């Protein structure tokens, strides 16, 4: 009995390695080809050394994309709907945010890169403390994200880049499992930026991300003590240590909505802006409801 139990992991590892030997390297090779070919067609302008003005670097991104594409294809098995609605040129991608780790941002970016025509690099707006973290700051910048200042966002949009923002912010990311798919309060900054730069807003609904790491509590005092934005407790974290951070292999569905073009004065009062923000929020809520209704199961 004991022997059977102890030999089980080995057997599992063995069977996994034979399966992996059978199909993974080939799949990785193909994926690498696909990424290389797509990287040649991105509209982002680069200088003689392969960098764009914000420090995005093709070779670094190519390598990181290979790793995250495996998640996209084989872990979350992402299904993307309506990617052709992503307009050429400047765009502000607005989505629901959940799942304790910002994998939804990565999956939306990959959807635009792997399925978009032409492939697009999605620019993320990072937290203000990220540039102070060694190495993290380099990876963040090389893969196309920047510190989320107003000026950076305006510059990127005026250079016809696509910027992703999560108006729910940390409120959405750390919501608990019984609050899933309930959109939290939206910030207004994105709408003012869209008005100022005449940028179309692409509403996005991500179905699946909200169950990837079911949060059961958020220990705010502990988070404050550790100077972290939140300290989530999920079904697996922190009980299983670092392994507990591995998200459940839920199936992702990403729905791209028709771009919404807003016009108006970017420095209007909060109520006027809030009305426009509500339209975007309402659109995403509808898309989420439709997506949930269409979903057959959590995992496939």
């Amino acid at each position: 009995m004991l022997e059977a139990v102890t030999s089980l992991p080995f057997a599992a590892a063995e069977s996994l390695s034979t399966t992996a030997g059978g199909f993974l390297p080939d799949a990785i090779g193909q994926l690498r080809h696909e990424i290389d070919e797509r990287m040649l067609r991105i509209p982002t302008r680069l200088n003689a050394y392969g960098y764009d003005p914000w420090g995005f670097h093709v070779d670094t991104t190519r390598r990181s994309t290979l790793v995250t594409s495996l998640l996209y294809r084989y872990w979350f098995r992402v299904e993307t709907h309506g990617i052709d609605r992503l307009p050429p040129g400047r765009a502000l991608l607005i989505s629901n945010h959940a799942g304790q780790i910002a994998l939804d941002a990565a999956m939306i970016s990959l959807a635009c890169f792997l399925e978009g025509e032409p492939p697009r690099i999605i620019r993320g707006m990072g937290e203000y403390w990220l540039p102070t973290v060694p190495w993290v700051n380099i990876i963040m910048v090389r893969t196309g994200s920047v510190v989320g200042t107003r000026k950076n966002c305006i510059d990127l949009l005026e250079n016809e880049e696509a910027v992703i923002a999560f108006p729910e912010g940390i409120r959405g990311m750390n919501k608990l499992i019984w609050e899933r798919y309930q959109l939290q309060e939206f910030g207004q900054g994105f709408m003012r930026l869209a008005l100022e730069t005449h940028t179309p807003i692409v509403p996005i609904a991500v179905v699946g991300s909200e169950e990837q790491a079911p949060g059961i509590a958020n220990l705010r005092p502990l988070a404050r003590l550790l100077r972290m934005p939140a300290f989530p407790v999920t079904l697996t974290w922190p009980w299983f240590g670092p392994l507990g951070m591995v998200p459940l292999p839920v199936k992702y569905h990403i729905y791209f909505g028709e771009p919404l073009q807003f016009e108006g004065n970017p420095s209007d009062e909060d109520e006027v802006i809030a009305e426009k923000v509500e339209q975007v929020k309402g659109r995403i809520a509808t898309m989420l409801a439709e997506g949930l209704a269409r979903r057959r199961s959590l995992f496939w």
Partner: protein
Amino acid sequence: MARFPLEGPEQLFHFTQAATPPKPPRAHRGAEPGEKLLITGIAGGKGRLIARRVADFFQIAGVDRVPWQGAPHNVRLHVVDLRKRKFEDVFRTERPDALVHLAFVRHFRSDPEVRHEVNVLGTKKVLEYAIAQGVKRIVVVSSSYVYGALPDNPYYVDEDYPLNVSRTYPEVRDLAEVDQLVTAFLWRHPEVATTILRPVNTLGYYTHSTIGHYLKQRYVPTIMGFNPMVQFIHEEDVAEAVALALQTGAHGVFNVAGPGAVPLKVAIRETGGTAVSLPESFARTAIGQLFRLGLYPTPPGAINFLKYPCTIDGGRFARETGFSPLFSLEDTFASVRH
């Protein structure tokens, strides 16, 4: 009191309204050929290049603490220290129409007192004399460092961004003060076409810049886990920017960006050096000690420039004067390759 028709919402304080509408600010015209130009700090690398660049257009006089061997014959030189009384005589005898102010101490070999006297008090004097002698246009070459390298800097800082450098690098606060002194002058004297240029890291054969010396080392210290984007410009392009500022009479503060930005370690590689990554705590202590002993050229505050971006938006200057750098990044790096 006459009421002017108001546009938009009713104003709150009618009694503060001016009796006559304000005069539009005087349009500044560019320099005419043959104007007299005085260059302070002419014997430095930038001074020489600027003098050569505009020699056909202006009658040039120069002043510097040290003589310029091999100066062009049509450049009149005064060897005077700007802290001395005789410096004022240069203005009286030359009576320049235009002024390019470059006489700054940017290195740390002289003590902070001297830096303050030359940079801050010197600039103050130069501006006073310029007004007394009726100078019509002034160009002051500041630098993009005045914005400081901070983690929450946006890429592409514009001219309205605060001058933050002394927050983390107090040793160069005099350079930020100079910049603000000239900005105040610019608003107080709208009749003088005043241009403040803030060029990015300047590289070239003649220019002795801190970044130039840094890149010319065989082994170049960098900070582990950080590799910020850095902009560069060729010294000839800075001279070109000064010439354009004089010739267009551009009035205001302008960032001068070069051909682009690369990560610091790419710049080190392209100029032929080898980057050595040091843990930050070690680098701070070591550089602090070595600087105190006079064995390292910059104080530890400079480390922030190896960690965070200080990149600027040069759009305003390009739109105003049509400036566009002639030297590519490759050319710029080649100019300091060892």
